[in-house]
């Protein structure tokens, strides 16, 4: 990685840590341990199912909220506070700044997810008393959640490069919701014809397909995840976020910092 991108990324990560973003882990730990204890008391034979479902959903939700709320301010806050002026007056290219910000945010989310994953596995150990081979599906589900974060971060950054934080959060959250229903949208597109069909197909394939990353239910039931899906999802997330970041760079490159 270009060293300037690394410095910007590290500073973004440091900002998140000092702004106490990782404090959400405390709330997560409380939620999960409380749930694990409660489930241990009241459910018979479905403890694992409940803990995995609850744990992974919480990891995804906490992460998406952080990705959106940190991501929307990444560029706009720097412009508003004018901190960007002293950065861009150095030999830092605008694309390096945007990419650095992206890596800093995803780095924060990876660290966050790592600690939350430890929490999920501890809760699993508490209710099941041992790890099973089927738990690898939980690991893969966590990996997919991280891939999902890549796209959300990229989207938040894209909107942040030309819009206000409020509008950016609305756009990103709306796209996240629509993307979570991408499978249904694609189904709808297949049923329509003519101009509506073409439009629906366009929209269905343009919005990020977050539903492909959601294998929480499969993981909870311990079903195996096909290798092809892992490869497809990895390629899709990398390509989609790369294209989105390129869009953010193109917009930011032309932006006047008034």
């Amino acid at each position, binding site marked *: 990685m270009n060293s300037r991108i690394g410095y910007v990324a590290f500073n973004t990560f440091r900002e998140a840590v000092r*702004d106490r973003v990782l404090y959400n882990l405390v709330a997560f730990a409380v939620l999960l341990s409380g749930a694990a204890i409660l489930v241990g008391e009241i459910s018979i034979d479905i403890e694992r199912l409940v803990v995995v479902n609850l744990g992974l959903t919480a990891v995804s939700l906490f992460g998406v909220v952080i990705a959106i709320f940190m991501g929307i301010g990444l560029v706009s806050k720097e412009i508003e506070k004018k*901190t960007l*002026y*002293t950065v861009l*007056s150095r*030999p830092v290219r605008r694309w390096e700044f945007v990419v650095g910000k992206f890596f800093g945010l995803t780095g924060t989310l990876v660290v966050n997810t790592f600690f939350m994953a430890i929490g999920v596995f501890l809760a699993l150990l508490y209710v099941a008393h041992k790890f099973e081979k089927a738990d690898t599906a939980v690991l893969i589900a966590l990996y997919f959640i991280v891939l999902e974060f890549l796209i959300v971060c990229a989207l938040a950054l894209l909107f942040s490069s030309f819009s206000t934080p409020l509008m950016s959060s609305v756009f990103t959250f709306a796209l996240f919701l629509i993307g979570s229903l991408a499978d249904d949208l694609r189904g709808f597109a297949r049923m329509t014809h003519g101009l509506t069909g073409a439009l629906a197909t366009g929209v269905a394939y343009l919005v990020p397909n977050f539903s492909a990353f959601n294998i929480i239910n499969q993981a909870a039931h311990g079903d195996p995840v096909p290798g092809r899906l892992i490869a497809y999802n990895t390629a899709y997330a990398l390509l989609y976020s790369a294209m989105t970041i390129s869009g953010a760079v193109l917009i930011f490159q032309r932006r*006047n*910092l*008034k």
Partner: protein
Amino acid sequence: MAAIEILDLEKSYRVGFWHQRPKVALRPLRLTIKEGEVFGFLGPNGAGKTTTLKLLMGLVTPTAGTARILGMDYDDPRVKAQVGFLPEQPYFYDYLTGEELLTYYAQLSGVPAKERSRRVTAMLERVGLTDSARTQLRKYSKGMLQRVGLAQAILHDPKLVFLDEPMSGLDPMGRREVREMIQQMRNEGKTVFFSTHILSDAEALCDRVAIIHQGELRGVGAVAHLTSQAQGKVEIIFCAASVPAALTALGVEARVSGDMVNAVLEEEKQDAALEILQRAHLRLISLTPVRSSLEEFYVQKLKPRENGRGAGA
């Protein structure tokens, strides 16, 4: 070689809900700043000073024209390694300490790793922030932030330093410190281009000044030349409790302050005035020719456009 050559740089924005109305921020500007010069860019608020600096730093794109900095195109990435910039009322990452901030900027400026720590320590000492090096910037006063701002601008030993209103909002001590730092930059051979609307600072520091108003360059001149032009008047200061009637009859403008009188009169009446003082046995303190000030030049350059289009540089 010229440090900065501004070649008809121009900027206008489109404003309004549909971006339909053009708003001119800077009319075609042509200006050359020599190497090693301390150059003052003067003008009232909203005159186009900050726009010019932002254009030169590549923060906004020009509508037309270009500029050359240290012999290179202004948007050449190599330029930025040799240039320092202090924005107006700078904001920094307030979650960082002074030391961390300077280290971050040193990294971005490409200061070699083995030199970084030494350079940061020396710079903190130079701006008098050694004791606050490990304090987060959110706890810094305005003066301290300005000092850390100056430190980041010269941390990488640039040849050219741009300062946007470096004294604005500072108390007298803070202004004095900033003035001393600019003097020091001059002694080190750096070219300093700074914008200000505080004329006394410009008069004390600059080799040359340019005056800009409503986005238009109104005049350029050497400070020494502007302030050395005689006005055909002299100022006499002498000891007296009141102005002698004979002196008043000569048509002097006099002001009594305690037991001193300060009188300004036409140069040709100087001998007659001295004779009156001698006859009245009044002690003469000083007699100095009245020179024009930068303020007069400034006011004169701003005036014509207030009443309509007219005189320029």
